[in-house]
């Protein structure tokens, strides 16, 4: 911790960043194959795609929460609220005009009568419109969430530790109620589902006569980009200011760090990316509704951050992929009434619906109690660090910033 990556460009770091870039390229090629080459009807491919998409989205949301909780030391529990704002902002601007009467069936077709992907589609063609439109809507989603965060931040950021936590939690609940209010129904569709907007399945390119699906790459693309920006922020002078606030507020203030300004900055940026994450989640779910963005969603994200290690970006990324894969896929067999090993089916009576979640929460408790530093602690996984370790150098704790921000 604390060693600046600009201080010295060791040869390991050059190789490390090269390996990281190669890995990301390899990942993207793999994702492309996953969508287009491998058979979609294969059960495992299908699950892999689902898990990877959702994992990428949660990775982004976790990193954004980590920026606030891990790097700035602001214990905020408002993440679900900002994701909700992002998801709605995205969906509202991406519903095709001819679907408005169906989606806003109780509100006379709603107040907004255009869709950004469609408007762009008229100029760029359907695929280009969907891609660029989705991108613009996602940025809008982030911006709306950030604006809300700025407004909420003014009063709330004066509070400390658990009072901040409970106040942000409260704001998330208030936001949820406001979005369900029929008075705003012409925009938010009241408490009903928003749907039919551009989702991951619509993201594709046409080369010659062949259509290539980009549905899995897209969330990775957005998540990688966003996480990269957060990494750059954390390693900049702003990042050092954030960490100083986390470690000792009084000392930070004495050193000339403007507490409120930096807290606000961290809060707004974190919310921006939570909003982006919310927009991606909306795309993933293909429908969106305010009701599920409960405080339990924030808790889940917080637990992922803790598993990964508070203050480690790579930790958050790894943890969210592990968490999503385990809960959505690998542990499903715990719910299925038994296991099949060597072609024999063993009925295990307590393997029934819900057992997966029990096992899962026990594992989480074990991590929280006995491995409270999580997978990565506050270190980062970096190729440079790995190479250094392979060479046997007892190097300083891995330099940050070069990690594989997938």
């Amino acid at each position, binding site marked *: 911790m604390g060693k600046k990556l600009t201080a010295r460009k060791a040869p390991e770091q050059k190789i490390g960043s090269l390996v990281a870039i190669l890995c990301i390229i390899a990942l993207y090629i793999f994702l492309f194959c996953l969508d287009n080459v491998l058979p979609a009807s294969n059960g495992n491919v299908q699950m892999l795609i689902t898990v990877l998409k959702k994992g990428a989205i949660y990775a982004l949301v976790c990193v954004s929460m980590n920026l606030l909780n891990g790097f700035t030391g602001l214990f905020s529990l408002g993440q679900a609220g900002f994701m909700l704002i992002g998801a709605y902002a995205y969906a509202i601007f991406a519903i095709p005009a001819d679907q408005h009467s169906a989606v806003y069936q109780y509100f006379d077709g709603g107040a907004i009568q255009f869709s950004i992907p469609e408007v762009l589609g008229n100029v760029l063609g359907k695929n280009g419109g969907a891609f660029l439109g989705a991108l613009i809507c996602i940025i809008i989603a982030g911006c709306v969430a950030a604006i809300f965060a700025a407004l909420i931040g003014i009063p709330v950021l004066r509070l400390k530790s*658990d009072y901040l936590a*409970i106040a942000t939690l409260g*704001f998330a609940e208030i936001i949820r109620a406001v979005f369900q209010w029929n008075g705003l129904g012409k925009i938010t569709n009241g408490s009903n589902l928003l749907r039919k907007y551009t989702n991951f399945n619509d993201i594709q390119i046409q080369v010659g006569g062949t259509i290539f699906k980009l549905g899995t790459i897209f969330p990775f693309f957005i998540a990688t980009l966003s996480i990269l920006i957060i990494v750059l922020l954390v390693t900049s002078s702003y990042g050092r200011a954030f960490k100083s606030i986390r470690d000792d507020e009084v000392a930070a203030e004495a050193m000339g760090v403007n507490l409120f300004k930096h807290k606000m900055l961290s809060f707004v940026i974190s919310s921006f990316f939570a909003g982006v994450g919310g927009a991606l989640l909306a795309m993933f779910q293909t429908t969106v509704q305010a009701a599920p963005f409960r405080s*339990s969603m924030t808790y889940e994200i917080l*637990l992922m951050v803790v598993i990964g290690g508070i203050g480690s970006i790579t930790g958050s990324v790894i943890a969210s992929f592990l968490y999503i894969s385990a809960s959505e896929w690998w542990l499903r067999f715990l719910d299925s009434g038994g296991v099949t090993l060597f072609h024999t089916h063993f009925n295990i009576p307590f393997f029934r619906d*819900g057992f997966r979640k*029990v096992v899962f*929460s*026990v594992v989480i*408790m074990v991590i929280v109690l006995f491995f409270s530093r999580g997978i990565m602690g506050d270190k980062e996984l970096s190729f440079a660090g790995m190479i250094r370790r392979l060479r046997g150098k007892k190097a300083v704790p891995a330099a940050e910033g070069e990690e594989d921000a997938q």
Partner: protein
Amino acid sequence: MSAWISANLPYLLAGISVGGQYALIAIGYTMVYGILRLINFAHGDVFMVAGLIMVYATASLPIYISVILVVVATVLLGVVIEKVAYKPLRSAPRMSVMISAIGVSYLLQNCALYFTGGLPQVYPNIPFLSKVVQVGPATTKMVTIVTPILTLVLVFALVALIKYTKVGMAMRAVSRDFETSELMGIKINNVISMTFVIGCFLAAVGSLLYFTNYNSVIPTSGAMPGLKAFVAAVFGGIGSVPGAVIGAFIIGICENIIKGLGWTVFSDAFTFVLLIVILLVKPTGIFGEKATDKV
């Protein structure tokens, strides 16, 4: 006038009744926070588990034995949670303990989901409490009348306990200054266990009253009442038992008035608006003592 009363009495009755139940939960929050500076997120779920224990106990046991069993089992659960999930983290940062509390809450909800199969469980009728009675122009369950009375009796007993017994004195000492009281020879762990015993006892009583009123238990039943009770504790001044009770009654009554006015969507959100307003205007709550590190 009488028409107005008969139209509005049901809201007031429902408000007082639910307020009393929030109060019983809120005491657990406020006492634990007073001593450990921990928002015990799992407290609402302990309350829900108490409801489930009652459902399963009455399936094979007579009702009054079940009531005793519920109280005992809930108290045990609370103490076990403290020993397993909070005690090892006593020297850890406050954030870690809070995360542990969230983890316990997640675990309890998921266990409840597993045991109930995700289906709502019908709460048994406790004959005396479920009886339908007439209050002036309104008809309601006996529990509506019993709740505020029982709540007040328990609160007075608790205040007396804190004021006049040795344990109570130790609690006050610990909540004032953790380290010094340890140096003065107070057995911190016993005091903390006692706090959880009292908190969970009241939560168990609260669950008997609450679920008799709303006769259905689901794994997330405890989440909202828990949060509201916490807000009540903050509103009344965290650490103060009478404050928590008054806060709970105010929240319970206001919530029902809001529903009566037709703003049902905002009945939950109102609680949080109240929380944020109180945090910003008077962070110590109405009865709170001078705070040192809240703002």
